[in-house]
């Protein structure tokens, strides 16, 4: 359960304060499939970073499963990111020097899972995203779509409740993009909370709920069928 109450985020560009989010209040229940739409600069990435505990709000409160996030220590935030949240980024953010398998293992390393267990789980996840035969390939040896699927497998490593995706199809051709969206839908059907930040209306159309952001404000929140 994600509860945002009048959350704002102000950055400082030199001496000029920039309001990225301005009093956004929204609740997202467990298992929802939500897209966040808006033009660039509307604050959708900031929203995702806040929800993902990569950043903390400047004002308002954020409760994750009833727990206030603002006062948490860095180690607690790390643990939340590690166990509860899986990220998928536009530019994949894989470790270039590591194989697909090692990339998927990474969150499990930080969870202090045993090597053998880690490896079999990582292989299972790569199988799930259709890359069982690419485990020992480096990101540079994979196509964009394959990279994003590795990233998705990594996001699923510690079986998180929430998948956060920031423009996941932005760097992909339409075919690969569709495959990724299909995977999101599968995850939603499996009971995960999936939140996709995008400016692509065709992706938003696949989700069950659409949040529209503009200039840091939530301008609409509509169900989608």
């Amino acid at each position: 359960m994600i509860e945002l109450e009048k959350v704002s985020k102000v950055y400082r560009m030199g001496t000029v304060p920039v309001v990225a989010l301005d009093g956004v209040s929204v609740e997202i229940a467990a298992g929802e499939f939500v897209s966040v739409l808006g033009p660039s600069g509307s604050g959708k990435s900031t929203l995702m970073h806040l929800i993902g505990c990569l950043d903390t709000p400047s004002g308002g409160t954020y409760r994750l499963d009833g727990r206030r996030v603002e006062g948490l220590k860095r180690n607690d935030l790390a643990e939340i990111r590690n166990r509860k949240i899986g990220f998928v980024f536009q530019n994949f953010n894989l470790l270039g020097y590591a194989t697909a398998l090692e990339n998927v293992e990474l969150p499990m390393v930080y969870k202090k899972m045993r090597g053998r267990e880690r490896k079999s789980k990582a292989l299972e996840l790569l199988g799930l995203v259709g890359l069982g035969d690419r485990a020992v390939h480096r990101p540079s040896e994979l196509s964009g779509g394959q990279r994003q699927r590795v990233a998705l497998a990594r996001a699923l490593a510690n079986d998180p409740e929430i998948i956060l995706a920031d423009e996941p199809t932005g760097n992909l051709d339409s075919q690969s993009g569709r495959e990724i969206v299909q995977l999101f839908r599968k995850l939603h059907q499996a009971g995960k909370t999936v939140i996709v930040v995008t400016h692509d209306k065709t992706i938003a159309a696949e989700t069950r709920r659409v949040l529209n952001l503009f200039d840091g404000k939530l301008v609409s929140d509509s169900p989608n069928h």
Partner: protein
Amino acid sequence: MHLIIQFFRELSKEKMRMFLTVSAIAWGAANVVLLLSVGEGLGRQMRRGFHGMGENIMIAFPGQTTKPYAGFGAGRSIRVREDDLPLLERRVPEIAQYSAEWIRDVDLKVGEKIQREDALGVYPVYGELRNILPESGGRFIDKLDMDRRRRVIVLGNELRDDLFGAGAEAVGRTIMVNNIPFTVVGVMQKKMQTSCYSGHDKDDSFIPSTTFQTMFSPEYVRNVVFRPRSVAEAPAAKEGFYRVMASRYRFHPEDKETFWVWDTIEMGAIAGKVFIGIELFLGVIGALTLLVGGIGVANIMYVIVKERTREIGIKIAVGARPSVIIVQFVLESLLTVAIGGALGIGLALSLVKGINLIPISHEAMEFLTRPVFSSLLALVCISLLGVIGLLSGVFPARRASTVDPVEALRYE
């Protein structure tokens, strides 16, 4: 394991920079090891040379009184008769051994070769007191020589070389001392001697004091050499010496000018402090060099942190705790320092070995060319390297752990 693999990947990516950094550390470590080893060797050689004259001994030379006492005015010369010396043994339990000593210039003649050198009249125990050990096949003066006033002589090794030829067998041969035939019974082993009071032992000759008296009839003893029972009892032995002499020759027991006592124990303690000072000084110089290498490591670690900002961001995003990031970078700098340190220590050790193989042609070089590496020095170097590795890793690592993931993930 993951971290070590990553380190070597980093190593191959940053070959030149890593090579230079590792070299700097190696150079620093080699400096520490070399300087400390040379210092240690220097100290040991100095101690050895110092002990060449004898270990834990005191040499007392009679002087003059400076205080009036018991009806005698100041400025009276003290003269010691040999007959009075047994008092030392009887009344001062802290004195373990003693020998009287006389000295005369004599003509030493072997065949047609004549040389004027010092002959010393001494007791058998003198050899032990003054570290005059015979070469194999020879001996020092013994009790029978004393009792029978034998005309036997022990030669310093260089005196033997001069008279008989370098390294020639001299034991059993006859030598004329002021035209009286003496038999050589021993030649002193070559030794290192840096302090002396009547010439170096290598140029002197030694004969039984009884024989000396028959030849020269000296009235007074030139000086007395004695050794306390233990180092701890040295001050008591010295006090006892003054006490006995004061009562025998009637001078004020606190009048220290009556005898000048060369206390090698006290001198040794002072010299020991000087050696430690020298070693510390050399060690600090080495450590400073190593520190420069450490700054190099810190520098490259900062660069690596900067270059890997995005990677750090990724790791933070998937749940790495700050401590994990810190450990990663500290380990990397420790590993860099360990590799450099191992190379440097290895280099220095082979240099130490090599230097020790150089044959000594000059006496002064004996002090610098005998470096010693000990396990204590190894411990010092390794802990120094450890501290520098940690310090040069901690600061860049802290920087890494505070990377803002949002910024980092955007970083290209």
